[in-house]
């Protein structure tokens, strides 16, 4: 892995981010209705979570089945700080980030002593435990009845009341996040992370402290998820613990895998495809003559997911980026090794 390729992909990504910024600004003028704006707010929120996951999964090879918990930590921190104690919403966002960092450390240190599959299991368990806390700590979270009446986000005297304002702030955060991750993966840290994904023992032998780097990746992904959760809470104004169940973690994982975890753009691509597909199936499935309800949408979604992954096992952006950067050969060798385990 020579630096030339990295600089090339770094520049390519920067162009991409600039292009995205442009698209984000003109998009609201092109769409026919607010429905698309709110769809893209959700896409943006998922995009933030999944971009964080890309750092974790694509660059350390670790799978998380518990990121809904970090998302929930952000959402509930914001809800409680701004909804219950009437403090400025920004403090809620920061509280969420802090808690997410601490929790990520607590879960990360023991987890990263484990092998590949086992982190998935540990995060799964962690997700269930956080869910139970949200559900049972009723005096603080409102329990399963949910937490409603979360005030809109507010910063420097400006209150975010309509969809458009949330659209811009969410996508601004996403663009900054992408820019940050792009810098990160092309920095010394990023190269270290990538080498961990390649071979842990090789990385260790050249003096990389595995634990520190893996923890960094986990913390970054946790913070991304927490911030997205905070804005979700302010935007929808109603949350309940069931939103942050294991299934949501799995949905995040689905997005990253269909987008491709080896590319900076995988998280965002996955979020767009997932949300869009689910919405599209709502329109398409009745056109095919099935009018009975969601079961056909579920079946279609499942089939599409399986077919997509059989033909594009590294996700859409993953395959594309590899072609682009001629990295495919090395990857294939690794994956064969993984499959044989």
């Amino acid at each position: 892995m020579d630096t030339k390729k990295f600089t090339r992909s770094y520049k390519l990504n920067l162009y991409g981010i600039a292009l995205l910024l442009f698209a984000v600004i003109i998009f609201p003028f092109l769409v026919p209705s607010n429905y698309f704006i709110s769809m893209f707010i959700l896409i943006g929120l998922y995009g933030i979570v999944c971009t964080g996951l890309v750092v974790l999964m694509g660059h350390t090879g670790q799978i998380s089945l518990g990121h809904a918990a970090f998302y929930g930590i952000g959402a509930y921190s914001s809800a409680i700080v701004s909804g219950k104690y009437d403090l400025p919403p920004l403090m809620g966002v920061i509280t969420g980030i802090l808690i997410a960092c601490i929790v990520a450390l607590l879960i990360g240190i023991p987890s990263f002593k484990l092998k590949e599959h086992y982190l998935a299991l540990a995060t799964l368990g962690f997700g269930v435990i956080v869910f139970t806390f949200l559900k049972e700590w009723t005096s603080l979270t409102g329990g399963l009845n949910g937490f409603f009446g979360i005030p809109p986000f507010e910063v420097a005297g400006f209150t975010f009341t309509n969809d458009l304002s949330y659209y811009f702030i969410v996508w601004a955060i996403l663009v900054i996040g992408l820019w940050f991750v792009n810098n990160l993966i092309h920095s010394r840290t990023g190269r270290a992370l990538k080498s961990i994904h390649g071979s842990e023992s090789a990385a260790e032998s050249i003096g990389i402290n595995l634990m520190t780097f893996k923890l960094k990746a986990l913390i970054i992904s946790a913070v991304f998820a927490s911030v997205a959760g905070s804005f979700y809470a302010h935007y929808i104004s109603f949350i309940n613990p069931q939103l942050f169940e294991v299934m949501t973690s799995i949905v995040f994982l689905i997005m990253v895998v269909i987008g491709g975890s080896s590319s900076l753009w995988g998280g965002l691509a996955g979020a767009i495809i997932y949300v869009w597909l689910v919405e599209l199936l709502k329109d398409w499935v009745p056109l095919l003559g099935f009018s009975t309800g969601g079961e056909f949408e579920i079946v279609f979604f499942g089939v599409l997911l399986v077919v997509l992954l059989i033909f594009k096992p590294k996700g859409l952006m993953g395959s594309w980026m590899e072609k682009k950067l001629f990295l495919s050969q090395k990857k294939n060798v690794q994956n064969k090794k993984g499959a044989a385990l």
Partner: protein
Amino acid sequence: MESLSQLMQLLFSGLTIGSIYALIAIGFVITYNITGVLNFAQGEFAMLGALLTISMSSAGLPLYLAVIVAILIVMMVGGLFERAAIYPARKSSVATLIIITIGVSFVFRGAAIFIWGTQPHSLTPFSGNTPIRIFEAVLLPQSLWAVGISLAALAGMYYFFNKTYTGKAVTACVMNRFAAQLMGIKPEKMSFLSISLSAGLGALAGIIIAPISGASYQMGLMLGMKAFIAAVIGGLTNAPAAVLGAFLIGIIEAFSEGYLSSGYKDAVSFAVLLLVLFFMPNGLFSKKSGKRV
């Protein structure tokens, strides 16, 4: 006396549910060791088995026949699933394979809503419903069936893997895929065999639990998750250990429900999972060497 009867009751409850988890957990372990896949659709086989049996027995088939036919159908579904979804993607990464199995579980669940609707269905117990009383605690005949069948299935598995040619071939594949291949064993065939076998075991679990809790299209998710914890606690590579893990999880659940609160039941079992992962990553009952299935 009263606390003793409560203890007995908790033990009975734990063993009953543990034996259900055990059957599914064995399937997890077999599939994982032969194909390297963490099959998140494993619980759905239980759902399919239960609902198929209910349909056929209400169509007039005698119960034992309905059970056998249902298991065979689910085994075929399992085999089809392996050929259509796992086999073509066998060289993909762990995450991709996990998501594929999740995709398949969506398909199974959606199809189940289509066929059986969303309402829960019931199945009559295999043999009567008169509780047996031991020290004031109540034991239902269906619980005896559950424990008995899962132990029998375990014995059957042992026989299969150690005494039959096919079973030995599967075991060989687990221990050393490459060497097995050199000996003329086809790993692809074993992968097919193992998944349909796991599917059959899952179906059996679903059929046993149906008279106890009813059956609905969404029952698979929870059963699969719990069995999964059991398999991990047992170390994921060892079927008897997974069975022990399953009984352990069943008993832990019963006790945390009986002495704590049901709200924390899931959290307690997952906390046990974390503790085991962090302190004994090879599973509670791991032997450092030796056979894995």
